[in-house]
């Protein structure tokens, strides 16, 4: 089974080469989507061995993942993994995430930071933002997963062909969770470790996600 890893990147020239070099031996192909970076992300990722696609204007992480997924499906991927460019995800977790798909036990796998205690998450995020996000996901999207904003996910080609998320920016995470739950696919969560280099999504970012989800619902 061919495993493709899609990595959206925006101004990541400092981290992307290391990420690509560490991930590449574990999978078949890496697709880095350069979201109109101002630095040399495209050149650095390409030199490191990734296939690089480029947005000619900045469209956001959700849009970059969509492009990378589309390209992967057109180029023979059986399993697609969504990964981050900032070095916060550990490449050694990729086989953990893809294993249930290869074994035929699941159609979609989400990496969860809450299944074991290996992730050192900022306290405010762990105790306030995440429970709030979990509640919002359950209340509005009817999704009950331990990690409400997991960006580390993998799915089969069959799911990829039917998974059409519309959110271009950070709200894609919640939308994908919702679509997967509605799609009736077999979902599995596996423990992953995230190494925090910055705080990530703030509470205001959370409100923006809710606003984006609401606006997009109205334009359906």
């Amino acid at each position, binding site marked *: 089974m061919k495993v493709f890893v899609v990595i959206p990147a925006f101004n990541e020239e400092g981290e992307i080469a290391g990420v690509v070099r560490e991930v590449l031996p574990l999978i078949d192909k890496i697709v880095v*989507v350069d979201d109109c970076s101002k630095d040399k992300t495209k050149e650095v990722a390409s030199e490191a061995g990734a296939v690089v696609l480029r947005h*000619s204007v900045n469209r956001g992480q959700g849009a970059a993942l*969509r*492009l990378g997924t589309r390209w992967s499906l057109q180029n023979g991927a059986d399993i697609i993994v969504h990964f981050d460019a900032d070095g916060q995800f550990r490449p050694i977790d990729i086989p953990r995430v893809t294993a249930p798909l290869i074994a035929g036990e699941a159609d979609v796998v989400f990496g969860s930071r809450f299944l074991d205690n290996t992730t050192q998450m900022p306290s405010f995020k762990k105790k306030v933002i995440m429970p709030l996000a979990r509640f919002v996901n359950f209340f509005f999207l009817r999704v009950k997963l331990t990690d409400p904003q997991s960006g580390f996910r993998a799915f089969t080609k069959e799911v990829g062909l039917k998974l059409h998320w519309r959110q271009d920016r950070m709200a894609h995470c919640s939308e994908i969770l919702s679509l997967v739950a509605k799609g009736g696919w077999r979902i599995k969560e596996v423990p992953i470790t995230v190494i925090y280099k910055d705080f990530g999504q703030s509470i205001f970012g959370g409100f923006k996600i809710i606003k984006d989800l609401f*606006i997009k619902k*109205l*334009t359906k």
Partner: protein
Amino acid sequence: MPQIVIALLIIFYFLAKLFWQNKKRKISRNEFLFWLFFWLVALGIILFLKPLDQLVLALGFSASAIQVLLYISVAALFYFIFSIRLRLEKMDENITKLTEDVAINQAKK
């Protein structure tokens, strides 16, 4: 009374500007007619504020005609801004589709 004079001066200024723009062909015929209608309605409201007050009272509002107009304007503005926001969202979506197609085509070359 002074406020009515100020309002009339403002309306006459915009009407004069409108006729000048039309004469210089800076706006289309339909645009001219729309704004002419708009400012003439505003003029009518200002000139007939008293009868409008009575009309508004008869309709059961406790506020004056000018206040009711203000409420309606705020509601209309909210509606128009929200429509623009939704339109922008759709445009944004189309830009993303175009960007995606361009990137895929570039990758094929």
